[in-house]
């Protein structure tokens, strides 16, 4: 079969195509590039110069070296599910797509670890090892399509990270192509605590600005022996949030502890996976405990008792796995469900100290009233990670800006009560300016100093994570305030 030819006068595109083996591994026509002008954050768009599809580490290294030598900006992309714009080519980057590097390289059950390529889809790992009773713990809602490489870049979380931790707690080793093309291996052989600064921890969550990960060794866990899931309906939000605190104070570490408010419930019930939640309740909690079978019932009865003490309207334990699965499908598709009640939505990702939940929810309510936009709340209540979803209609002039400003105001509230601006979605381009809510200029510089060590020419994923210095930031802030 003859390969298609690369027909362009752009020598860089011809040379990049040569590195990856020709026209079948590169996109450069405008109509092909349109699919790559944004990721899961769709408010800002920009076309890349080209998209290349390397098949192995060596090709990634050669591509990176070529871009670096020729001063072409570049970035890595997985499935493009990121919610903060980390993979948007704001500088017309060459996108190095890692979707063809999607093999499960090795599973070592005895030592509880697996090695994957970055394009390997999160849920596929659990599916590949579940017959032996193992799973991979980080479970972002997009796990059916997001890649583990992207999870490493974003330090992705998920509903079950309350007990089991986020991606960084499960990464044992990485092969990384540095921005100069050099290939390094950190966390060698997956052995913990290798001597030296913890680059494994630093690179995980660096949003693709320090290097491109080409192999990942992850920890795999044995399935818990037993699992029980509870659904509790509350007539007011503060009873629900106090129940959250009481469960934690009782010394229970649930595997997951999720909350949805009335607007969110309206959306999930109108979308593809309704489970029949009452429409007139103000909040629901989805609580899961897992572990040794002999200890589960005791924890469940404590949880039921806590809910009753907090005036729960109805509380029930999942009868079987299929009921549990339906409850989770309803929750995990919560963001997309907003489409059933609003043309557009913007999801935020603040984190607060758990004890401030009632106060923060009432302030978010006020932001909603002031902006005239509805805000639904879906959150990982156990660890204080809120996802306010600002509902808007982009066709109405000015609403997008209003939504952005309302989202930013929610993050300001989180920062004010001692929290942070993102718990699992990353900063990307979306929250660059909001970094100032939680860090001083000096603290931001301490971070960009580290970036300079790895990425001195700032060709790799430039313009992400950190606010732009000086006046631009102030002007943008003023614009947001004016919009409010």
């Amino acid at each position: 079969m003859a390969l298609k030819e690369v027909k362009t006068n752009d020598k860089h595109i011809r040379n990049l195509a040569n590195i990856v083996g020709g026209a079948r591994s590169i996109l450069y026509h405008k109509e092909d590039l349109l699919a790559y002008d944004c990721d899961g954050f769709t408010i800002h768009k920009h076309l890349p110069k080209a998209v290349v599809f390397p098949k192995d580490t060596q090709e990634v290294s050669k591509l990176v070296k070529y871009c670096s030598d020729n001063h072409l900006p570049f970035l890595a992309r997985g499935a493009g599910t990121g919610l903060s714009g980390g993979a948007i080519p704001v500088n017309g980057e060459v996108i190095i797509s890692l979707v063809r590097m999607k093999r499960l390289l090795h599973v070592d059950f005895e030592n509880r670890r697996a090695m994957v390529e970055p394009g390997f889809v999160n849920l596929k790992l659990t599916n590949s090892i579940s017959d032996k009773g193992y799973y991979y713990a980080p479970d972002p809602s997009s796990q059916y399509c997001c890649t583990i490489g992207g999870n490493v870049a974003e330090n992705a979380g998920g509903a079950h990270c309350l007990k089991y931790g986020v991606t960084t707690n499960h990464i044992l080793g990485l092969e990384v192509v540095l921005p100069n093309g050099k290939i390094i291996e950190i966390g060698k052989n997956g052995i913990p605590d290798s001597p030296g600064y913890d680059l494994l921890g630093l690179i995980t969550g660096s949003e693709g600005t320090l290097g491109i990960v080409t192999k990942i060794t992850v920890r795999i866990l044995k399935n818990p022996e037993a699992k029980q899931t509870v659904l509790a309906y509350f007539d007011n939000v503060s009873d629900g949030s106090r129940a959250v605190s009481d469960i934690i104070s009782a010394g229970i570490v649930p595997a997951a502890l999720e909350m949805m408010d009335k607007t969110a419930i309206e959306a999930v019930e109108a979308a593809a996976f309704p489970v029949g939640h009452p429409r007139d309740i103000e909040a629901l909690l989805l609580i899961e405990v897992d572990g040794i079978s002999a200890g589960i019932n005791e924890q469940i009865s404590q949880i039921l008792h806590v809910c009753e003490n907090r005036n729960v309207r109805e509380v029930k334990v999942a009868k079987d796995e299929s009921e549990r699965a339906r409850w989770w499908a309803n929750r995990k598709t919560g963001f997309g469900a907003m489409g059933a009640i609003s043309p557009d939505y913007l999801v935020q990702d603040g984190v607060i100290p758990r004890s401030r939940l009632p106060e923060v929810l009432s302030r978010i309510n006020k932001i909603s009233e002031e902006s005239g936009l509805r805000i639904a709340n879906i959150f990982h209540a156990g660890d204080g990670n809120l996802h306010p979803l600002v509902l808007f209609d982009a066709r109405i002039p000015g609403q997008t800006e209003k939504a952005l400003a309302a989202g930013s105001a929610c993050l300001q509230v989180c920062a004010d009560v001692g929290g942070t601006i993102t718990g699992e979605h990353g900063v990307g381009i979306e929250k660059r300016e909001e970094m100032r809510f939680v860090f001083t200029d000096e603290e931001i510089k301490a971070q960009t100093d580290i970036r300079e060590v790895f990425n001195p020419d700032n060709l790799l994923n430039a313009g992400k994570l950190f606010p732009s210095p000086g006046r631009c930031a102030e002007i943008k802030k003023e614009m947001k305030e004016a919009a409010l």
Partner: protein
Amino acid sequence: MITTSLHTDLNSLLPEGQIITGESKSHPLGNGGFITVFPKTEKEIERVLKYANGYEKKVCVQGGGTKRGFGGLMETADILLSLSKYKGIVEHTAGNMTITVKAGTPFHELQTYLAEHQQKVSLDPAWPEYATIGGIIGANESGPKRLGYGSPRDVVIGLQMVYPNGSMIRTGGKVVKNVAGYDMNKLFIGSMGTLAVISEVTLKLRPLAKYESLMLLAFPEGKFESIRSFVTSLLESMMEPAALELLTPSLSETLTGKKCYTLAISFEDVESAVHYQEEFVRSIQPVQTNLDILHQKEAGAFWEKLYTIGPNGAIDSTAKETEAAVKIGVTNLDGLHVLKESALMQDSHNLVIEGHAGLGHGLCQVNLKGASDDVLQAILQLRKFVEQLNGYLIVRHLPYVLRQQLSVWGEQPCHFYLFEGIKAKVDPNRILNDQRFVGGI
């Protein structure tokens, strides 16, 4: 003369009584200072560092001093900055399950306070009454219960630091989930104080276990196939041991009175779940093994004893022999080979060697005692052995003079230039814990 002018300068920076001259120089473990300063506020730490940075004075940083013999090629720096008087709880809201403490707070003091709230920091470092939280984080120390609860990188959620130029830098935050910016906490955990002085630490807490048991499974015949097969069965089951530590016969004798390979298996959960797991272990107990079970305080006492068997840099050793401790990282079950080799070397090198290996995570601790040449030879031989298993060996405790005769950290990795780059950005004048870390950083 130099000391006098240093003393005069520091006197203008700190209140009287917080500066001592001479006490800490020429210590057998090195890592001392001509002058010791005891800041009591962050502002005072800032003043000392700004001064040292401006005049290019070398500063050694110390908490409780338990790790004084861990790395370092300087016998006496200009200034020994002790955080032992910078201690106490800054903020604790029980409902948030987080705590912020000053770096010089001894670990045991912190745990005692938290126990009143039925909470704990889920770390189990050595010498908890002496070791400070700052030192534990700085040296990335973990114990056997790492299997169940992780290491400092899993529990630290925020740090406040004073950079060498005096800037106050916060990393992370006070909430349990946070991806705003780089995960800078990780850079400082285990950095051996070579980048900045940690002043405050914010930690994620866990509830105290409702019930605890310790199963001691002794293998009098020392058959490794039998140990391995039992460990594999336990790890493949759905049981959730908080620790699964194999002890060398010598260490087992010290801790349990029985001189044979012994597995220490810890379960922490609600009482019914603990007993259920004990039953499971009984059901797979290999023949020709002996099983003892300790509960609650008795189990706790065993671990407390284990935490104090190694050398402690804060106590002046009276032993005539040389004491050393090493940390070894290998792939999980290779810990079996490491312990076997260590036990063999006890006789071949005429040393007392006590070791334990975490068979769920692959980290081993080995303590050696004997003539200094024998200790050095044994460490080098053990490192060679471990490197054949693709692992690493770090010397955690050794007198200053002997540290000059071997590499505490082993070979530099090929990406060492990144470590140097990081050091150069954060501490360009190399004032902090100079030569204490990998490759002389």
